[in-house]
């Protein structure tokens, strides 16, 4: 299978648009949930090696809060929503009104964890329903799982399927950040959409760029 090699710049633009539409909806959902302004960056679509993938969120050992789900249906793949600990803490504190909550505590409050899970549910749901509306494809997300751990350990879960076919991965990467929180324009969260290699044909067909 060399589907991955046959991707042109037109294809990359289409994938970028998917990231754009998906993340815009998710950012809007997040924004209304928190009553804060959430902005997003122009999506990046990259073909990277597994090891370069680790660098997209600060290195394999960086501890992050990760939401992961599988997409099934007309197009299959993995989706991650990755937040640095401090940013996840800020979101959840605001959601549950508990200023002491932190994902760096070894014993996590159940309320905080389920709030994070729900947040992941809502965001990935709005990302994927936008994607489904845009492409006309039927896609079904699994219930998202939550893990607070090293980025490498979390993201490699989504590389397993791909690694049977390739040593590289196409990643649709959209970053979001909380406006006005700091001036350094630091990236605060990532949506990573990793379509399974066999799914690209379906995505491109659905969008008329087969």
């Amino acid at each position, binding site marked *: 299978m060399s589907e991955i090699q046959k991707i042109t710049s037109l294809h990359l633009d289409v994938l970028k648009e998917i990231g754009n539409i998906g993340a815009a909806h998710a950012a809007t959902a997040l924004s209304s949930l928190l009553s804060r302004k959430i902005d997003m960056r122009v999506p990046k679509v990259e073909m990277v090696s*597994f090891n370069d993938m680790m660098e997209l969120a600060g290195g394999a050992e960086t501890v992050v809060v990760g939401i992961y789900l*599988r997409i099934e249906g007309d197009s299959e793949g993995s989706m991650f929503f990755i937040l640095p600990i401090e940013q996840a803490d800020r979101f959840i504190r605001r959601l549950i009104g508990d200023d002491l909550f932190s994902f760096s505590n070894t014993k996590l409050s159940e309320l905080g964890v389920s709030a994070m899970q729900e947040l992941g549910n809502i965001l990935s749901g709005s990302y994927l329903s936008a994607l489904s509306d845009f492409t006309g494809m039927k896609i079904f997300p699994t219930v998202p799982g939550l893990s607070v751990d*090293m*980025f*490498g350990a979390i993201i490699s879960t989504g590389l397993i399927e791909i*690694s*049977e076919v*390739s*040593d590289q991965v196409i990643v649709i990467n959209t970053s979001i950040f909380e406006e006005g929180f700091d001036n350094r324009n630091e990236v605060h969260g990532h949506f990573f959409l990793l379509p399974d290699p066999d799914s690209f044909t379906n995505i491109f067909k659905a969008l008329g760029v087969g």
Partner: protein
Amino acid sequence: MLDKMITSHTSQVIKVGIAQLDVVKMPDTIRTSGLGSCVGVVLYDETKNIAGLVHIMLPDSSLARTETINAAKFANTGIKALIDMLKLAGVQPFRLKAKIAGGAQMFKFSSDNDSMRIGPRNVEAVKRELVKNSIPLIAEDTGGNSGRTIEFNPGTCLLSIRTVNQGVNEI
């Protein structure tokens, strides 16, 4: 070939990425970061203080759907490739011992998707391959649902394992 000179250079940490392998000699150490369902396999010769590490992702190269394969990605081909690399470094295979870590399940799903059980399958495949090559498994820290960063010191033959919640542990 034994290097009789006591090397005075400061020790280095050799980093091994996902689906990669390498070999080091004392006083250097070898390390791989962020093992989830992947397994880090260390093979070492305690008489020569040489060790190799392979960071494997999948149990068997028959899963590959590509023409060319990266040997370090699979348990069966990765361990073989590491043994070959250690032979080139002057190690006799019968002296090799193994320590392994990883094979976690990072997310709990009710889905019966096979790739969810990849951690335990990787561990089983590694053990099978070690038996096949008559390499004794001295210690392991496998399973669970935490990511691991591991570092092996061929001088002490200890494998240190760091997890986010449990700190550092040596086996």
